[in-house]
């Protein structure tokens, strides 16, 4: 018990001293910053700069420019890590079959409200994902919002109702289609004489995705990356929700496995 107090007191000391140090410039800069660091200045300046066509991303949203252009390979492997985690979950729950029995769900009032709001949430998710290159948001945020619809349907209707519309295999297929789309958008430039993950034309490589389609600003590859990423994330998270919220008895039986029976 005494060790617990010792831990608490030492953590409190660390908290106070660290916050004092950070507030007075221990990180080399004061909090909040007064100006931008030179790297951040370059990102903000070049995100949307039609007057500098060989360096710009042509997206007014600096964060999405960094995520899918300046540091695109970084995001690609981040997506790969997420995919690995979801594959791990599916492997762990391989014995579980989400039951197709359609339950009663909540009351008629709750079900009607869910039926009205679910398409609205989907519309908001699509807006977040498809406008990711213009306004704050992007593929991951849009996909996570779309996965909320699955959660709402699961709670108000039933797991069986969700599974009857979107089975485990179909969700995994959608997820893979999204990832293949991302890979295709990344690999089209080298096939046509550009660099991997290239978006706009550069000095040494003239390949360029169209910055405008039909007069609308699409920021080249950013729109496609956001579209496919939202598809992959929405399907992946729906799959995880579906598996993790399976009935208790089914999960327990699968989680116990064979070792437990031998004992």
């Amino acid at each position, binding site marked *: 018990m005494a060790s*617990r107090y010792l*831990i*608490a007191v030492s*953590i*409190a000391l*660390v*908290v*106070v001293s*660290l*916050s004092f140090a*950070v*507030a*007075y410039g221990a*990180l080399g*800069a004061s*909090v*909040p*910053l*007064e*100006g*931008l*660091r030179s*790297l*951040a*200045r370059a*990102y*903000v*300046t070049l*995100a*949307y*700069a039609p007057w500098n066509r060989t360096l710009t991303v042509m997206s*007014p*949203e*600096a*964060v999405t*420019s*960094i*995520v899918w252009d300046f*540091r695109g390979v970084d*995001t690609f492997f*981040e*997506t790969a*890590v*997420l995919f*690995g*985690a*979801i594959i*791990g*979950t599916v492997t*762990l729950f391989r014995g579980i079959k989400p039951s197709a029995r359609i339950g009663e769900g909540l009351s008629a009032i709750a079900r009607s409200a869910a039926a009205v709001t679910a398409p609205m949430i989907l519309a908001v998710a699509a807006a977040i994902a498809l406008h990711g290159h213009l*306004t*704050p948001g*992007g593929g*991951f945020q849009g996909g996570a919002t779309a996965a909320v619809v699955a959660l709402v349907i699961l709670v108000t209707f039933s797991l069986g109702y969700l599974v009857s519309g979107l089975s485990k295999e179909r969700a995994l297929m959608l997820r893979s289609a999204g990832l293949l789309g991302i890979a295709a958008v990344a690999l089209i430039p080298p096939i046509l004489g550009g660099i991997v993950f290239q978006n706009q034309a550069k000095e040494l490589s003239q390949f360029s995705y169209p910055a405008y389609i039909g007069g609308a600003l699409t920021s080249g590859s950013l729109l496609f990356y956001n579209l496919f990423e939202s598809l992959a994330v929405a399907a992946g998270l729906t799959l*995880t929700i579906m598996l993790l919220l399976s009935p208790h008895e089914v999960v327990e039986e699968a*989680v*116990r*496995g064979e*070792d*437990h029976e031998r004992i």
Partner: protein
Amino acid sequence: MIDIEVFIKTFIVLALFGTAGVGLYGVVAKPHATKKIISLTILGDTVNALAILLGYRYPGGIPPVYTGQPPNEFVGRAVDPLPQALVLTAIVIGMAVNLLIIYIALQTYRLYGTLDTRLIKKLRG
């Protein structure tokens, strides 16, 4: 009327490190693995919020989204977009790591029948 700079320097930084401290305490001192996992997510999210704070700037502090103002004015006021992009990555990686930890916890429960680290420590074989 309190100055926003003083407010950030005193209250927000202290609150963020305080929350991180609570998370750290939970990871170190709580015996049950589920509570350790919850504390770890609190710790991770607080560190993300701290990274966002480090990108904030004052005076200025508008979002890094170009809305058609003169470019010089935009660069002169926009916050640092790099921490925001890195936090987006960190959230996704954090979710993947949490899934992996939950997997390990489930495997532990499957093998030992408990998630209490005090009991797991005493088990042999």
